[in-house]
């Protein structure tokens, strides 16, 4: 294992800060915590943070403002903690460039999984030098809007996806025209959703194909590769 990633936790509840720090430290992270936006700004230059866990409901200067400020400083990945059902905050946050979100009260293991997934994605991003989360991804006439977590068909009609289908589609869009084995897909999706994946990958692919109106036998978008894998055979345009 490489060096322990340094995480900045911003939350106004002292106990949550402490518990979260303990929990993350136990899972091999280095944690610095901040009570509010001011403390976070003060701590920012001191540590070389790989990730920020940010509660959007902060006293004084709000979490969204802090996120905006952080974006001016660096590309550090941000995982937002939002109030249940507060759609607008979540959408604004994701459009500002936050990488993921969890509604409070969250499941600590879920948070851990999201943090790991975001770190993995950001390191890939660093390698490939790809700009951060786009507003929309266009492929074969379809449009995926990550901030709203929604998929629109070529007629602009929303097609609702399950969490698993959505994550699978995002993983494949990030790696368009590259063959992905079941193991790679499993690895990319592990932890994001509960539920045992294995044959589950095949099930998820067939469900996704049906939603994308992609006939399994003559699939145009998601093609099956002989020898165990799938490829999204389509150019992806970032908007």
């Amino acid at each position: 294992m490489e060096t322990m990633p340094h995480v900045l936790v911003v939350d106004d509840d002292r106990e949550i800060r402490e518990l979260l720090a303990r929990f993350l430290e136990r899972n091999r992270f280095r944690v610095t915590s901040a009570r509010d936006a001011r403390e976070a700004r003060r701590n920012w230059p001191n540590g070389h943070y790989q990730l920020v866990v940010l509660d959007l409901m902060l006293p004084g200067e709000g979490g969204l403002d802090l996120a905006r400020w952080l974006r001016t400083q660096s590309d550090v990945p941000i995982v937002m903690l939002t109030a249940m059902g507060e759609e607008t905050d979540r959408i604004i946050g994701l459009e500002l460039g936050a990488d993921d979100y969890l509604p409070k009260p969250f499941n600590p293991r879920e948070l851990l999984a999201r943090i790991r997934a975001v770190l993995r994605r950001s390191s890939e991003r660093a390698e490939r030098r790809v700009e951060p989360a786009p507003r929309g991804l266009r492929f074969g006439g379809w449009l995926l809007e990550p901030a709203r977590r929604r998929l629109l068909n070529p007629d602009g009609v929303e097609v609702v996806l399950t969490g698993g289908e959505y994550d699978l589609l995002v993983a494949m869009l990030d790696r368009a025209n590259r063959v992905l084995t079941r193991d790679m897909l499993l690895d990319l999706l592990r932890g994001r959703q509960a539920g045992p994946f294995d044959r589950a990958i095949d099930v998820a692919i067939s469900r996704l194909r049906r939603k994308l109106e992609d006939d399994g036998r003559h699939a145009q978008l998601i093609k099956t590769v002989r020898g165990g894998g799938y490829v999204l055979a389509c150019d992806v345009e970032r908007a």
Partner: protein
Amino acid sequence: MSNVPEGLTAATLPRRRRWSVRCWSAPRWPGSLASRTLITLLFGLALVQGLGLTIHAYDSIGLQHFSEARDIGVRISTIFRSVISVPPEQRPRVLQELDLPSGWNAAVGPAPTAQLTGLPPQWLEDVVRVSIHSLRMLPGQHPRMIVVRCDRRSHKLEVAVHLPDESWLNVRLRLRPVLFWNSPTFLAAFVLMTIAAALLSVWAVRRLTGPVATLAAAAERLGRDVNAPPLPEAGPIEVRTAAVAFNTMAARIRRFVQDRTFLIAAIGHDLRTPITRMKLRAEFIEEDELRGKFLADLDELEAMVAATLAFGRDASRAEPAVALDLPALLRTVVDEATDAAQAGEQLRYHGPEHMVVQARPMALKRAMANLVGNAVKYAGGAQVVLHRGGPGIITVFVDDDGPGIPPDELERVFDPFYRVEASRNRETGGTGLGLSIARNILRAHGGDVALGNRGGKGTRATITLPA
């Protein structure tokens, strides 16, 4: 929440049908205020016009009678004067030379012909008599006697005047037919006037009862969406007052709903922090089994808070309606329920591959997930069937083959926190809000949901949505 109108049309559809049914069962007196007012007005109009026409006709008949009697009297006087002004032997010639109207016949004889036996109406005889007697004559030339006879059936009249020289002047004539109105233009004008008055009544009634319909539509809209636009406060004073009162009421309801939403949101918000702490603390419990149970309890608690929040929020949610593929949404709900319950064999979707509806995706998905989740919880599976239920209506059935629900509880299960007695045990758990939330959401879409038993084979939830 402002784009509900599409929902309106479809939602009013079954209501309209009900209205016509009520109309059929009581055909004598229509239900609507407009029809009732209109019928009363038109009946009154017909009555007034009928009476007016009758009075006018009587008047006109009297006038015609009088003038005809006058005419007869004057003519007979003229004949009389011509006859007595010449010697008896010249009289037939004079009579022949007279220009008599058609149907008239005059002759001089030794006696009254008196073929007719009936007596004329008193006024006719009087007018004829007076006309003849009022002639200015030389002395000794006055008629000695006048006999008037008539046959009312054939409209024939006989007047015999006894001349001073013992002979009789016999005049026979046919009475003119009586007209109820003097001219055909009068009738045309009368009919035109009546039609105009009737049309005016229709227009006025429509105009007067229009605001009532507007008010009813506004109340209907408010019931579905507290943020519906206010009524225009214009028109006559009464209508304006009603609109102002209605808008004030709507504002109070809105305020009440907002307060309730804020309250529930505040409670939910305050609960989030302790639940988050507990979840974090639970991670430090070393014993796996205990930690698992702890986390399961917390998940349940969280679900309850989430449901309560959803119930408080859904009424005034600001999620916009978009075009979405309903089969995709139903498949998503079925697939997610399958993944969660691992009940793949019992969960199925049947229906078309694509059908576009206007809906709020998150809300509609939650409603469907609640209904499917219920079926899975109580029956271990569900069949979701989608089809077009008729023009403008989409129907979704969520069928299960569970124990069913007692008939008298089918409606009460939609009450918040109400639960069927048999389900009040730990295993099935839940908040008792799922169905209330589902119904709230569907009604806000202009649809509805109802439960029914499938004849001992389980329960069927029937969801309707406007197409």
